[in-house]
């Protein structure tokens, strides 16, 4: 993707002069049987008899009703039947063609088997979901790229899945969920980071996932709004853990993309860590670079949801701190909190910065 000419797409923002890359599209299967061709007879039996079993009590669904059915735009249900973003032709028509998306990153969420209580099942599902992304999506639309779905609670099996996909340009990143059963920097997960670095793939960490722990450190909240705003706190624990355990010192080439996690909390976490680190560093001889330096070098963020403070300079300051080259446009299609690219970035962000966020940054990161 080297040459850009203006698209005739009616929904493409004018500022997307360096291409329009959407780093957060959520494909769904029409039914669980879509995965059958890539599952063994035993795993097919497990899937259809027992289903996915996340590490929380709400086995048949999510703990909260997510604003709209299947958390999706109500106009995203394909006219030909099926669930939102299960029909590649309709995804192309409603989103990729209409908004003039040049490259779209697929992030399959549940039912994908990630974080399942049965590690072997989780690994089998990850393999099947990855094959399904290639056959059902990437092969049918050259604009789409797959994510390597991994059974992240079984890091050894995850590393096997990542190495299997290494060098295949149809995959652009490894996909994890933000809520894991241990803080993500725990050495338990290091085989995932090692394999991703070896494959030259960034790691996209998408908000949500069900770890078995309540989603706030005070227990289970009462309302969905508490869950969607809780990502700011659980992602702070995640970043804290990656920095302090020394993940970025050990894996110097590691690139982390925080997807749908918000980002205004990131500078304040870094300031707090930078304040504590000089006095507590005796316990952390493995940390050589200031936490803020690690965060700014290794972490990218996506725009949906973007913080919307009433005073523009507050958002500009935040983005300046994170790094204008570290911010990526995301639509979250087909979900209810989808961001239309024409409205996602406020006009007070300088045009060249918006161009980078819409396309240039993602192209540099993923090599599109």
């Amino acid at each position, binding site marked *: 993707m080297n040459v850009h000419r203006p698209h005739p797409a009616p929904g493409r923002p004018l500022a997307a002069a360096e291409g329009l890359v959407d780093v957060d599209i959520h494909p769904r299967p029409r039914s669980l049987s879509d995965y059958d061709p890539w599952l063994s007879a035993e795993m097919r039996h497990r899937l259809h008899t027992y289903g996915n079993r996340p590490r929380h009590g709400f086995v048949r669904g999510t703990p909260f009703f997510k*604003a*709209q059915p299947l958390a999706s*735009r*109500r*106009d995203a249900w394909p006219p030909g039947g099926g669930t939102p973003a299960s029909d590649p032709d309709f995804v192309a028509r409603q989103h990729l063609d209409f908004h003039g998306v040049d490259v779209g990153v697929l992030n399959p969420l549940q039912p994908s088997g990630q974080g399942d209580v049965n590690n072997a099942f989780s690994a089998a599902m990850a393999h099947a979901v990855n094959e399904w992304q290639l056959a059902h999506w990437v092969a049918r639309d050259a604009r789409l790229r797959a994510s390597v779905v991994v059974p992240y609670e079984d890091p050894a099996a995850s590393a096997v899945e990542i190495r299997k996909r290494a060098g295949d340009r149809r995959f652009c990143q490894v996909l994890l969920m933000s809520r894991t059963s241990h803080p993500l920097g725990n050495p338990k997960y290091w085989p995932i980071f090692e394999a991703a670095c070896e494959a030259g793939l960034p790691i996209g960490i998408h908000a949500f996932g069900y770890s078995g722990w309540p989603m706030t450190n005070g227990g289970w909240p009462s309302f969905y709004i508490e869950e969607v705003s809780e990502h700011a706190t659980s992602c702070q624990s995640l970043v804290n853990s990656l920095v302090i355990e020394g993940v970025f010192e050990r894996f110097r080439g590691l690139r982390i993309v925080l997807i749908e996690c918000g980002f205004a909390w990131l500078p304040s976490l870094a300031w707090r860590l930078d304040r504590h680190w000089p006095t507590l560093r005796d316990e952390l001889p493995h940390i050589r670079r200031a936490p803020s330096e690690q965060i700014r070098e290794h972490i990218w963020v996506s725009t949906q949801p973007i913080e919307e403070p009433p005073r523009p300079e507050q958002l500009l300051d935040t983005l300046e701190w994170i790094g204008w080259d570290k911010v990526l446009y995301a639509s979250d299609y087909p979900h*209810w*909190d*989808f*961001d*239309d690219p*024409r*409205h996602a970035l406020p006009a007070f962000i300088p045009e060249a910065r918006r161009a980078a966020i819409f396309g240039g940054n993602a192209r540099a990161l993923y090599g599109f």
Partner: protein
Amino acid sequence: MRHVVGPVEEIPPGGRKLVEAHGRRVVVFNLGGEFFALSDRCPHQGGPLSQGPVMGLVESPCPGEYRYGRPGEILRCPWHAWEFDIRTGRSRFDPRRMKVRAFPACVEKGEALQAETFPVRVEQDYVVVEL
């Protein structure tokens, strides 16, 4: 500018109709025999309001006390679930500053509409919006 939406029977109570006229997309609702017209474009990101579900209004004077009323009179955007009062176009969360454009709608007798380009029958009642 006046636009004839159609015979009243076309939009039964609780029903709606999307019309395109004079360069605007407008959705017309029937609330128990009264007609209201709103722009089809959500003021937030432009979601198609005509595809949104309607609901009632849960109000709460304080935590723990709730009342449900006005069933069918609150429209929810199909994208980000912003809510609007069909009678006024005003949003639930910031009625003063955030609203969807509302247009006057009424019922008129066919005989009063003879001069319109829309073919009408004298004995029929029609829904009319002012755009």
